[in-house]
């Protein structure tokens, strides 16, 4: 039989292997892209610089010299690639052009906590609220409660995070003037561990947090409602009903089983949630990864763009793995090796 003694371990190892392979492919693409796209601005800058360096070596600025060195001009591509990987493994993602001479990694690390603080609680809150609403709708199927939840969820799920952010800024920040309109803390204050700063940061947190929670909630509600309705029609639910089990009890079993696919859904949605949060940061001038990426993009700071991608993709995969791990823990079929 195909049963092994440690199905959970095997499952997790397979996941890790897949993610490592995927990560290698993804970072390779990050490496190849600027070198392969015809007419890409980086290639043009480098070509101009290399001509300049032959005729007049002094004319090149220090930042550009670093750019040339780091993109390994003149070396064959496979040596460039080995350079890129071995440096990245040592935590060296190159030097930023627009923030020269600061290292890319030193620019990225301080902004990551801000993105995490915004993204994680908001995503989890949205997941819980959305699933609860969806379950309520399914339980009260075809009543006005169901119709109300479904219709509003359908519309809310289509509101882009950042546009909802704009509307919230306009109402609460500009019209009512009760909440700050931008940033993660007041200008002039320095992040520190005291109560005043905490309260200030909290006030700045409310709007970007709510815009992500509200717009992410609808999708979960729609999904859970469908899953619960399917599950209510399954044999075991009907059978329990015929046995005379109370509605509430049946519903509790059904709800738990319907949540399983939503856990996998959480892993898959992290990517789009991150994308949405990155742009929300731009709208709020919130000092996270998205805002840094935006500045890197507008100043064509390619080493920084490349570095942000290497980090972002890695964090997505790690998050993905954590969700899969959770899934394996709660789904007995995987735990006992009866998958497929």
């Amino acid at each position, binding site marked *: 039989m195909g049963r092994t003694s440690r199905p959970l371990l095997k499952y997790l190892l397979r996941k890790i292997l*897949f*993610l490592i*392979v*995927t990560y290698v*492919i*993804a970072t390779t*693409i*990050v490496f190849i*892209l*600027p070198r392969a*796209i015809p*007419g*890409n*601005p*980086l290639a043009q800058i480098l070509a101009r610089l290399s001509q300049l360096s032959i005729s007049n070596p002094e004319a090149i600025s220090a930042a550009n010299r670093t750019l040339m060195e780091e993109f390994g001009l003149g070396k064959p591509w496979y040596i460039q690639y080995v350079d890129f990987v071995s440096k990245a493994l040592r935590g060296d993602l190159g030097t930023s052009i627009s923030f020269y001479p600061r290292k890319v990694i030193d620019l990225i690390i301080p902004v990551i906590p801000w993105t995490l603080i915004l993204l994680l609680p908001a995503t989890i809150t949205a997941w819980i609220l959305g699933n609860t609403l969806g379950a309520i709708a399914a339980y009260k199927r*075809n009543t006005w409660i169901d119709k109300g939840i479904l219709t509003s969820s*359908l*519309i809310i*799920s*289509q*509101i*882009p995070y*950042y*546009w909802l952010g*704009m*509307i919230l*800024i*306009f109402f609460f*920040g*500009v*019209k009512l003037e009760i909440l700050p*309109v*931008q940033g993660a803390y007041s200008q002039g204050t320095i992040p520190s561990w005291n109560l005043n700063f905490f309260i200030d940061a909290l006030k700045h947190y409310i709007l970007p947090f709510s815009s992500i929670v509200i717009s992410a909630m609808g999708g979960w509600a*729609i999904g859970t409602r469908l899953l619960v*309705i*399917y599950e209510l*029609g399954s044999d075991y639910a009907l059978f329990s009903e015929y046995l005379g089990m109370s509605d509430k009890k049946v519903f509790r079993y059904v709800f738990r089983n319907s949540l399983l696919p939503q856990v996998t859904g959480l892993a*898959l949605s*992290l*990517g*789009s949630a*991150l*994308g*949405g949060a*990155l*742009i929300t940061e*731009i*709208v709020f001038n919130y000092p996270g990864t*998205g805002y840094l*990426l*935006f500045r890197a*993009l*507008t100043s064509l700071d390619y080493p920084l*763009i490349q570095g942000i*991608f290497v980090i*972002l*993709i890695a964090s*997505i*995969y790690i998050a*993905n793995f954590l969700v899969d791990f959770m899934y394996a823990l709660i789904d007995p079929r995987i735990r006992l090796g009866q998958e497929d």
Partner: protein
Amino acid sequence: MLFKMFKPLFKNKKFIIGFSIFAFFVILGLLGPVFYKVNPTEMAGMFESPPSREHPLGTDTYGRDILAQLLHGVRTSLYIGFLAAIISLIIGTIVGTFAAVKRGIVDEVLMAFTNIILTTPFILIAILIASYLRVRSIEMVALILGLFQWPWFARAIRAQLMSVISREYVYLSIMAGYSDLKLIVEDLIPTIATYAFMSFVLFINGGIMGEASLSLIGLGPTQGISLGIMLQWAVLMEAVRRGLWWWFVPPGIAIVAITSSLLIISTAMDEVFNPRLREE
């Protein structure tokens, strides 16, 4: 046959509502710029003036007419959405059916490829590619978006076809010596037609939303006006914090109205065609 297939839809209230809203915006995008002949890229009046009789939706920082921008924006965004959806649908169908029909190593390779793209956020891939293209036409943006949003569809198609293939009538066709292509076209494609159509609708949404995201981050089309470009201009000019609501509200409403009408259409189709959801 097609008419017969879609006929029950028009008895569904949800579908009628969704379809009417969507049709309204399609007409707005197609005919709006024809009838409202104001150039969206040229100064047409005072700077940043609120809605008035002359400019029903006001003007922006450069005195450009917002209504004209909106009409052209709806047109462009719908065009991008459709184009991206067609690309995604074609790739997804090919990958999904080949994986299901060929099985074995072809299936393994195709699904590994699909999973790799699925694990990497599609908007991130789009941002990465767009950042290296200095000139981005509207079609190019649609292509970038369409190339990466098909994986979930391919997986669903494969799963569905796998279950269809083990049915008797497919065995009979195989025994009758049908070629793979004939089998796919005659026996398999019809079974996924409604699902494909529903997914097509969602792909349009992905395209419209994706364009808006790319534009906001500064990587949208470099010529032409889309709903995303309008939002980007509004953000760049601090329209939100300066209270110029007529500038950033209309493009957002258009995006939400178009995408949620499409979602309602797809939900209604699910209700009509999916026996497990039909109300008893």
